């Protein structure tokens, strides 16, 4: 399991209702269903990934996150997840508002653009960072809204979103004391547990 997923699964209550936006091949939901008995639903637009969800027996709906989520009722899920997808949506702030409407709690994970590697790359090469972690060129990247840990903290403050927990990890997905000290500089993946 992807280590950021290992961290967030501790925040999911057994038997709860979980909606995963951009659920990919359904691995996380399959795990949560098996280990925690959650009632799961994933949204996905990629045909192959949808098929992978069906193979796993994970409930999946073909729906585009960039279009409306108005078909979901207020507080109809205990937890709404968005893992490593925030940076790829058209209106990240509006989507987070929608997640807080649909779910009692929200979990968001995203790549931290404030990480020192990105900073060094941009400073010395003068070009948009390309790495194993972010392997795209600026013109073909699906990632159109990168942000840093500080940016996201600011958004939560402005929108009065309660941050119940925040974990920042490096590519080994370990949160050492150094990362806790300088999360925006050393952290590669940010993991937020939010509510309103």
């Amino acid at each position, binding site marked *: 399991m992807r280590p950021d997923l290992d961290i967030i699964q501790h925040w999911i209550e057994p038997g709860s*209702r979980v909606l995963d936006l951009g659920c990919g091949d359904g691995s996380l939901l399959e795990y949560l269903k098996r280990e925690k008995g959650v*009632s799961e*639903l994933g949204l996905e637009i990629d*045909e192959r990934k*949808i*098929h992978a*969800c*069906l*193979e796993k*027996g994970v*409930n*999946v*709906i*073909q*729906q585009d996150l960039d279009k409306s989520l108005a*078909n*979901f*009722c207020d507080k*109809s899920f205990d937890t709404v997840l968005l893992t490593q997808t925030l940076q790829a949506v058209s209106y990240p702030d509006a989507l987070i508002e929608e997640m807080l409407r649909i779910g009692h709690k929200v979990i968001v994970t995203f790549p931290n653009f404030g990480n020192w590697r990105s900073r060094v790359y941009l400073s010395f090469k003068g070009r948009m960072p390309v790495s194993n972690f972010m392997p795209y060129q600026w013109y073909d990247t699906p990632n159109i809204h990168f942000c840093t840990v500080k940016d996201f903290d600011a958004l939560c403050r402005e929108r009065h979103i309660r941050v119940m927990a925040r974990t920042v990890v490096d590519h080994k997905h370990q949160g050492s004391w150094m990362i806790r000290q300088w999360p925006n500089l050393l952290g590669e993946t940010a993991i937020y547990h939010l509510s309103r």
Partner: protein
Amino acid sequence: MPSPFPENSVGLVTPQCLHFDEPLVLRSGKRIASYDLMVETYGTLNAARSNAILVCHALSGDHHAAGYHKESDTKPGWWDNCIGPGKPIDTRKFFVVCLNNLGGCAGSTGPTSLNPETGTFYGPDFPVVTVRDWVNSQARLMDRLGIAQWAAVIGGSLGGMQVMRWSISYPERLRHAIMIAVAPKLSAQNIAFNEVARQSITADPHFHEGRYLEHGTYPKKGVMLARMVGHITYLSDSAMREKFGKASEELPSEAIKSNFGRDLRSGKLSFGLDVDFQVESYLHYQGERFSERFDANTYLLMTKALDYFDPTVDYDGDLAKAFEHSQCRFLLMSFSSDWRFPPERTREIVNALLKARKPVSYLEIDADQGHDAFLLPVPRYMQALSTYLARVSDEVNR
């Protein structure tokens, strides 16, 4: 002797006629004292009797969903693409049941049957049957077959509406509800097309108020017209361009390569009222073939069943409320070019299920063939059905 049929065919099949003596009270308040249901089955019921799948047919379908009735048959059953060994509804794993619905004209009691009360054909006196009545009769068939719970009930279009009714009326009697190219109820446009079809039939001078059998005649032209207008709504604009634009490939100029499917029948215009375009002769042919096998009164009944279908009628118009007691899992699929029941109509059902907090999966399949796609071997659609049903088989064939 080697089998003349493809290896993944269920091969030769024989329908059976089951008689039911217990009167069936219909939604209209009328009753049918006794009736026959024409049934076909494929595959084998397992020891736990848990691997049965009910396939519900649409407007013009019947019990003959797969295989062949005789070796000389050129065409298999209407859903042979989907049903057979190794096909999505895999007859090595499932016991598949398909019946001709009441009011049909393929052997089940309907307008062409003799009315025991009068000794003559039911004709127009056959009571209007609704989707709910069909499902009630299907439940009796299920009891007769000794099946307590369907592993899945599957259907497209009007068949999908029967699936929906199953999930509402008999929540504990199915594990999975699979609905394809379906809408929660007909729109005004849908009803309008049905009314044109009905008027075509009833205006035919051979209709005789529905008593054509007693007059020894048949409203052939009317049924043809009804089918022609129906058929147009099953195809998409692009499917028709494709189907009737083949000859354009041979045309010399780039400019006229795309001829909008306007292939001519004989190569030149008649400047008269004769058939000029391929699409016209195709529709005539389809209408003609259909009128040879389908009963006019049954067509009228089927379109009424479509028009009347409204699962929310007992639930203050709220579809989510209708699904409140459903216990099955749901799979829905729609097709991008279907303008009869377009994806947004299917999503209305998905959204009602979400509101009712029911487990549901939904796929929107890119397909050019319009509403008809549900009968065709569209790869992503077939694959999704296969994958989903493989898991259903794992559940029921333990």
